[in-house]
């Protein structure tokens, strides 16, 4: 053998110790603190892309794409509330706090949602007048921190959402780092400016479902049984959590999967706790069905909803509506390549920017810096959000008509197949081309 020509082994990166993992080890070694960031999980997970609609053919009859009606409206809170909510589209804007977001961004969310005929939601930190003013239908979050919580705003709200958890961090509290605590944020939260604000992970005055029932009753008494009461949970044990929310008297259950965005959470939490939304919807619907409450207590799901197909799939699996957070921020202008130069200066790139905790958002959305925040025009950003929402609804209708449905709510699991065994098991629909649903025995 020619000893000058020994084939060389190519340098090989480890799949286990990949460059991202190794960089994180070095960062941890240098700083001694975990990584905190915004946005949702970034890893590949079983998701709605793993499902397909079958569409109609000879055995099913489609609706005429541009002529026949396919309704999109949804009622929320019909169980106990005297004033349930009626939305034109089953796509709502999820709770995102003033503090995490600028006042302009909150206003834009309200404007966009109102044009599209849907609701928007406050967040940790209370209700701002801009947001109330621009939101036709506003859901007021009732969180463990109770920052800014007051009965006047409670009465001004169209519904109340008791937040127990979030998909990005089920079992975790919140934090807003000092750099985002402006005078106004500090004043709304009764805390000094510039300090890190921790939000507790448990409510201060109730623990467990028996207490929650009494708490919900109190909120109803205060607001004279007018407002729908939502209960929001992160997806962990959806069957039991949904059943307990129903038992506690919820009108609406909001179920947020692990893809759900956050303003600031430990990376390890975002990536390793909770269920992907695909795995959570069927057990949640099962709980509602077992209690005879499906469609009576409405189910809103969220976590990684991006397009009308995702909306249609969530509804086909049994949800009554969906909520969007991250996608709404992107529609406003988050992570737009137009800011690439500035993203580079922050050591990142458009599409990867997730330091939403940091307050230096070039798009002026996740910031309290007056100059940055002023970059976002609430009117045009609101218009973009409204356009995007209407595309989501149109896309979902396109699919529903192709499946022969005259209302988005008529979509059903039977319209779906899965591309992977995992997705088939989680969504409880057959693997494409088979009649096999893993986990469901057939003899």
């Amino acid at each position: 053998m020619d000893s000058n020509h020994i084939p060389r082994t190519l340098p090989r990166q480890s799949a286990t110790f990949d460059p991202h993992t190794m960089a994180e080890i070095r960062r941890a070694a240098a700083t001694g603190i975990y990584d905190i960031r915004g946005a949702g999980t970034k890893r590949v997970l079983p998701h709605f892309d793993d499902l397909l609609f079958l569409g109609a053919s000879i055995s099913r009859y489609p609706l005429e794409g541009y002529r026949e009606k396919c309704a999109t409206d949804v009622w929320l809170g019909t169980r106990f509330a005297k004033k349930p909510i009626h939305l034109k589209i089953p796509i709502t804007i999820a709770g995102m706090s003033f503090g995490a977001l600028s006042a302009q961004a909150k206003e834009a969310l309200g404007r966009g949602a109102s044009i599209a005929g849907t609701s928007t939601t406050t967040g940790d930190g209370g209700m701002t007048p801009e947001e109330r003013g621009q939101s036709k239908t506003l859901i007021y979050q009732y969180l463990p921190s109770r920052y800014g919580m007051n009965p006047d705003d409670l009465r001004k709200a169209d519904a109340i959402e008791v937040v127990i958890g979030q998909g990005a961090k089920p079992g975790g509290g919140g934090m807003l780092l000092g750099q985002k605590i402006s005078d106004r944020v500090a004043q709304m939260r009764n805390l000094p400016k510039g300090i890190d604000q921790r939000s507790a992970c448990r409510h201060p005055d109730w623990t467990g479902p028996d207490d929650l029932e009494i708490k919900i009753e109190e909120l109803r008494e205060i607001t004279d049984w007018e407002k729908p009461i939502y209960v929001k949970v992160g997806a962990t044990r959806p069957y039991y959590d949904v059943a307990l929310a129903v038992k506690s008297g919820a009108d609406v259950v909001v179920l947020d999967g692990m893809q759900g965005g956050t303003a600031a959470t430990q990376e390890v939490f975002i990536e390793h706790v909770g269920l992907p939304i695909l795995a959570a919807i069927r057990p949640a619907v099962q709980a509602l069905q077992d209690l005879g409450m499906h469609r009576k207590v409405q189910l809103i799901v969220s976590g990684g909803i991006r397009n009308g197909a995702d909306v249609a799939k969530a509804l086909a699996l049994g949800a009554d509506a969906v909520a969007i957070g991250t996608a709404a921020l992107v529609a406003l202008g988050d992570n737009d390549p137009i800011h690439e130069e500035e993203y580079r200066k922050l050591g990142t790139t458009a599409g990867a920017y997730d330091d939403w905790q940091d307050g230096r958002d070039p798009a002026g959305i996740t910031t309290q810096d007056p100059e940055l925040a002023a970059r976002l025009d609430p009117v045009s950003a609101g218009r973009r959000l409204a356009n995007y929402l209407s595309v989501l609804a149109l896309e979902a209708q396109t699919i529903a008509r192709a499946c022969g449905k005259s209302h988005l709510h008529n979509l059903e699991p039977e319209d779906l197949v899965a591309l992977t065994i995992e997705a088939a098991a989680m969504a409880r629909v057959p693997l494409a081309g088979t009649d096999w649903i893993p986990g469901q025995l057939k003899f």
Partner: protein
Amino acid sequence: MSVVDLAVTSRRELNIQLHALAPNTNQTHWRVENPNGQHSLAVGLDAPVTVEIAGHAGYYCAGMNKQATVVVEGNAGVGVAENMISGMVHVKGDASQAAGATAHGGLLVIDGDASARCGISMKGVNIVVKGSIGPMSAFMAQSGTLIVLGDAGDALGDSIYEARLFVRGSVKSLGTDCVEKTLREEHKEELRELLNAAGLGDAINVDEFKRYGSSRKLYNFHVDNAAAY
């Protein structure tokens, strides 16, 4: 005086009547008979009236109170005066857990003892407890003043922010970031004022109190304090 007998009238009806009161109502004095520990009595009030509850109240009595004076002539359940904004709530017996939780303003007076988590996450309320308070009281207390004539349980003021705590008796243990501070003249003045408002006149010697508050070490994350979080 308006009398509502909960043996014949429902809680819903009581709260409806109280919510209907205009700011200048002349029905300023209410008496609620046979409360029998029902939950959510006199919640969400927003008028300068006095409501006397002739017995024990359940959870969340006088929750989110504004302007009104609510007097519980017996014991109060979990979360009495939770998230109060203004006005006064006076419990003549003992109070259960989370008394005055997250309250933003007003005055809460408890003649007896208060259980765990008294003043948890308080945001501006003043609380005077004539007896003792349970563990984890004033957890994450943000602002306002908590005065205790008796003793305090474990982990008082854990993760406290700017609230001021005054305890006359013993403190079983202080929570993370809560420390004893010097009692200065301005604090004695505040004590006198609040004790007066709580109906104690000058009977109490304010020099006997110790003051506790935040050492502010956890205000901005520092890795060397990681174990304290």
